[in-house]
């Protein structure tokens, strides 16, 4: 078990290094000279050269990468071009907004999806199953930004129950802040419930065909106990992996939802930085999000043996 944990932890380091290299390379591939862009058209060659030297852009690429990596390791992601603020605190502030939405939504979706998937598998090919699968497939097919717009139109504009634009941090008072988060969370929960229900159902179907489940039934274990004790724990492991992937994908995909609900989250920060050609921010958000994604997958892999002890043995 300890060996498994250590091996998995060690494997994360080269991945993170490669991710950093990919981000660095990507930023160097952007057409146009970032210095020229910063200084504008009126800067003369001497000014450009001086700024290049100051930013270390005249050094060979491997050296630039090394310096950047050293700075990143110290938590220095550079400065935003638009507002001259350090990038990391900016990212952390925006990340808090996105993280609350994503975490609450995925937690709610899991609470809905795992029982739904279990019931569907238990009732396989009966009307209840058909209903659940159809519902999940429908939810899966609705684009989040459209569902968000519809909910906003109905609950915000028609009924006037919830605010349509704006954001207040939860620290300014829970009720006021939460009002802005209800619709984005509901939207995400609905959509992710679709994805997770199908996965939970598929793995529960696989597990309930195994002999130990038949055995448990044959020896007269009550049906609810068969499901709760024998099917659920073993069917949950693959779903856990998917939850990890969903969490990571949402960090990249939440930009659209934050646009619909005008929330100052991480996705919106990235899109705004792309528009403003604020490359230090783009670079920082990419690195930060990819790192979080790698760490989430690490966490899932570390939790996996709790649900499926065979994993750590292999």
């Amino acid at each position, binding site marked *: 078990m300890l060996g498994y944990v250590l091996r998995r932890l060690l494997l994360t380091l080269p*991945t993170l290094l490669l991710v950093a290299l990919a981000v660095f390379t990507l930023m160097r591939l952007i057409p146009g000279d970032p210095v020229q862009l910063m200084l504008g058209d009126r800067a003369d060659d001497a000014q450009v050269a001086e700024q290049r030297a100051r930013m270390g852009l005249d050094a060979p690429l491997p050296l630039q990468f090394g310096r950047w990596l050293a700075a990143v390791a110290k938590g220095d992601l550079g400065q935003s071009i638009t507002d001259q603020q350090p990038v990391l605190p900016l990212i952390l502030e925006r990340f808090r907004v996105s993280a609350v939405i994503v975490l609450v939504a995925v937690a709610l979706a899991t609470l809905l999806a795992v029982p739904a998937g279990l019931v569907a598998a238990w009732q396989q090919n009966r009307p209840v199953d058909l209903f659940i699968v159809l519902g999940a497939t429908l939810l899966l097919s609705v*684009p989040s930004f459209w569902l968000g717009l519809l909910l906003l*139109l109905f609950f915000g504009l028609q009924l006037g129950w919830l605010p349509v634009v704006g954001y207040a941090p939860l620290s300014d008072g829970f009720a006021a802040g939460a009002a802005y988060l209800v619709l984005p969370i509901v939207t995400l929960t609905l959509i992710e419930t679709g994805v997770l229900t199908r996965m939970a159902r598929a793995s529960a179907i696989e597990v309930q065909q195994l002999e130990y489940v038949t055995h448990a039934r044959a020896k007269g274990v009550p049906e609810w106990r068969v499901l709760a004790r024998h099917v659920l724990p073993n069917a949950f492991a693959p779903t856990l992996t998917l939850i990890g992937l969903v969490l990571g994908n949402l960090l*990249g*995909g939440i*930009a*659209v939802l934050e*646009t619909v609900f005008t929330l100052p989250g991480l996705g919106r920060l990235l899109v705004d930085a792309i528009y403003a050609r604020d490359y230090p921010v783009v670079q920082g958000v990419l690195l930060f999000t*990819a790192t979080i994604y790698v760490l989430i997958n690490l966490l899932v892999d570390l939790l996996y043996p709790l649900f499926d002890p065979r994993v750590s043995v292999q």
Partner: protein
Amino acid sequence: MKWRLNAVVGSALVGVILLLALAALVWTPYDPLALSLRAKLQAPSAAHWLGTDEFGRDVASRIMAGASTSALVASVTVFFAVVGGSLVGVVAGFVRGWTDRVLMAFNDTLLAFPGMLLALALMVVVGANRWGIVLALGLAYAPSVARVVRGTVLGLREKEYVEASRMIGNPELTTMARHVLPNCVAPVAVLATSMFGWVLLAESALSFLGLGVPPPAPTWGNMLASGRPYMQTAVWLGLAPGLCIALTLLGINLLGDALRDRLDPRMAL
């Protein structure tokens, strides 16, 4: 029975959308780009089945034109992702050794990014236009094809008929093309079907963010974005494009389920 229904409804939905997309290449009720400020924000009527937008453009015509843009972008993207990913996967799985390690290290690095994030990042490099999207999304999704193909090839190369082909003296390339590649078709087809859906969704999301196909060319995503400020009074601007995306995705998802049951019963849900 239930799964046959999947295939029927799925193909019907996808078929209708593809027909719309093809039809739009030769005919739309109105010019999808023609402005008519006198006719702006009109509700659906006999003359404009789906109403008009904030510039008086016919929404139905724009939906049709949007279908061809989205279908084209998604098809070309999936084609490149499948061809590129398969090539990497086959080479890595068949040659193995250092080639495999280097290719997969590169591949897994790309997989370490959430798909949409990688696509957003690549859009910065390639620029927001329809071929930029193809390149960005193709690169973002090819690694998962490479993974699946490599896995399949690794399983296949130990099979007796592949061994037999080598023993009778066939060059590696012939063995690969004749005996290994054809057997990768089923898993790749299943993946490509779902990928078509992901790409379509990602393309509309990028267009919605203003980082996809630039206006005035209509896509369902940028139609939703530009209609958004008027949605309270002109609900149809928000309904039609979103419904089209949802129905297309539903069709693809149903078709994907049916195809998976058919081609790869082990993965049947």
